[in-house]
C-alpha cells in the first residue's frame, strides 16, 4: 500500500476511571463479554452435510465466504484502525482496537470453515475468484477510498455501511442453509459474527451522530446527502454482486429483500430514516427465523385477533437484583 494511513498524533495514558462517554464502557463490556474464537465451534460436524450440496452450491458457498473474508480483512486492518485518530475520547480508541481485532478473528473464521470442508485446491480457487470478481473488488475499493480520505465523519459513514449493510449479501447464504438444516454449525459461527457486527455498526453509527452535534445545518445536510448517495452506489453494486452469485441457484430475489431490510438498519444506525418500504423488505420467514429464532413469534398483539395473547417466553430470568 503506497498511501499512508494517518496515525493519532497525541497519545495520553487512558484512564478508565474517568469516563466522558458512558457508551464507551458499555460497548467495551459488551464486546469483551461477547468474545469468542472459531475453534470453539464444532465445524467438523458439518462435513457430512457439506457432501450433500451440489457442485454449484459448494462453489457459491466458497465464493460467498471469500467475499466475506475480504470485507472482514478490510475492516480489521484498515477500517476500524482508520477511525482511531478521530476518536473523541481515549476509551473510544480502545473500543476501535477491540473491533479491529474481532474483525481479524472473523476473517480467520472463514479459513477455519474452508479448511474443515474444502480441499486446498478449492480454497485457492475461491481466493483467486475473490481477486477477480469485479463487483466484490469494487465494493472493497469504494469503502477503502473513504478510509484513506480526509473526512473523519465520512469514514464513519462508510464503516457503518460496511458493518451493517455490505456483509449481508454474504450472511444470507449460511442462514439459508441453516433453514434447510444444512451446515448448521457453520451457521452458528456466522451468527456470532452477525451479533458482533450489530454492536460494531451501532457503536460507529452512534459516534457518527455524536460527531454531528454542534455542526452547521449545511454540513449536516451535506453528510446526510452523502450517506444516501454512498448507499445508492453501494446498493447498485450489491445488486449486481447478488445476481452474479445467486442467479445460478435462483435465490437472487430473496437476497435482495434481505439487502433492503439491512440497508434500512444501517441507515437507522446512522440516525437516518429507513429508505426501503416494507413491501420490499419482506425477507422470507425462514431466513428471519434462522437469524433470530424467536423473532417469528407473534409479537404483533395489535394486529392479532385476540387469540395471540403472548406472554413473553423468556429463556431464564437470571438478571441480578430481579426480585420483587
Amino acid at each position, binding site marked *: 500500500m503506497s498511501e499512508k494511513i494517518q496515525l493519532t498524533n497525541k497519545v495520553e495514558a487512558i484512564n478508565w476511571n474517568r469516563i466522558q462517554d458512558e457508551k464507551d464502557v458499555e460497548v467495551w463490556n459488551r464486546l469483551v463479554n461477547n468474545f469468542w474464537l472459531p475453534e470453539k465451534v464444532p465445524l467438523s460436524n458439518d462435513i457430512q452435510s457439506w457432501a450433500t450440496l451440489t457442485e454449484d452450491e459448494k462453489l457459491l458457498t466458497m465464493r460467498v465466504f471469500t467475499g466475506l473474508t475480504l470485507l472482514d480483512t478490510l475492516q480489521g486492518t484498515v477500517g476500524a484502525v482508520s477511525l482511531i485518530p478521530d476518536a473523541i475520547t481515549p476509551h473510544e480508541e480502545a473500543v476501535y482496537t477491540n473491533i479491529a481485532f474481532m474483525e481479524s478473528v472473523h476473517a480467520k473464521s472463514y479459513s477455519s470453515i474452508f479448511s474443515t470442508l474444502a480441499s486446498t485446491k478449492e480454497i485457492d480457487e475461491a481466493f483467486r475468484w475473490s481477486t477477480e470478481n469485479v463487483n466484490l473488488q469494487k465494493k472493497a475499493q469504494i469503502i477503502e477510498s473513504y478510509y484513506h480520505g480526509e473526512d473523519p465523519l465520512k469514514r464513519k459513514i462508510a464503516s457503518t455501511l460496511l458493518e451493517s449493510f455490505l456483509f449481508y449479501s454474504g450472511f444470507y447464504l449460511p442462514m439459508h442453509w441453516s433453514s434447510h438444516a444444512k451446515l448448521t454449525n457453520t451457521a452458528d459461527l456466522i*451468527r456470532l459474527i452477525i451479533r458482533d457486527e450489530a454492536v460494531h455498526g451501532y457503536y460507529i453509527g452512534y459516534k457518527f451522530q455524536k460527531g454531528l452535534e454542534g455542526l452547521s445545518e449545511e454540513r449536516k445536510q451535506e453528510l446526510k446527502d452523502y450517506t444516501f448517495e454512498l448507499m445508492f452506489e453501494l446498493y447498485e453494486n450489491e445488486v449486481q454482486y447478488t445476481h452474479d452469485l445467486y442467479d445460478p441457484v435462483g435465490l437472487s430475489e430473496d437476497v435482495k429483500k434481505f439487502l433492503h431490510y439491512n440497508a*434500512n438498519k444501517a441507515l437507522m444506525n446512522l440516525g437516518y430514516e429507513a429508505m426501503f418500504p416494507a413491501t420490499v423488505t419482506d425477507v422470507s420467514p425462514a431466513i428471519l427465523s434462522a437469524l*433470530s429464532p*424467536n423473532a417469528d413469534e407473534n409479537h*404483533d398483539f395489535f394486529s392479532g385477533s385476540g387469540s395471540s395473547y403472548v406472554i*413473553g417466553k423468556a429463556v431464564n*430470568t437470571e*438478571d441480578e437484583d430481579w426480585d420483587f
Partner: protein
Amino acid sequence: MPPTALADRQYAEAHEPLVFTDSKLVFFSSVSENTARFVEKLQMDSARIPLHAHEPKLITTAPYILLIPTYGGERGKRSILPQIMKFLGYEENRKNLRGVIGAGNTNFGEFYCIAAKRIAEKCNVPVLYTFELMGTPEDVLRVREGLETFWTPASQKQQKP
C-alpha cells in the same frame, strides 16, 4: 435505639425526589436516543425513565405501556438495564403495567428484545410489539394505531387482568 432497616428504607424512600406521571406510555432510552426517536415519532404523551441516579424517580399513577430497548449480546445476561429494574422496583409501577413493547436487533438472535420479553413474563403482561432500532415508518404506524385501540374502553374490558 437506632432505627430499623425497614424504617431507614421508608425514610429514604419518603425523601427520595419523585416525579409522578399519568402518561399511558413510559419509555427508556439511552444516550443513543434510538428509542426516544421512535417515541417522538409516535406523537403521544409519554414519560421517560430517568437515565441517571441523581434524577427524580418516576412513579406512575395510571395504567401504562412500557417501551424499552434491549442492547443484546452477552447471551441474554444483564439484558434489563438497572434504571428499568429500579423503575419496576416500585410497586405502583408494576401494578399499573399493562403491556410491554420491545426495541432491539434481530442480529442478537434468540435474545432479540429479550428485556421486554423477560419483563412481560415476570409481570404477567403481554409483549405487544417488537421492532428494530429506531423503528421503520410502518412500525410507528402500527404502534400508534395499536395503542389507540388498546386504550379504548371496549378493548380494556377484555385486557384487564
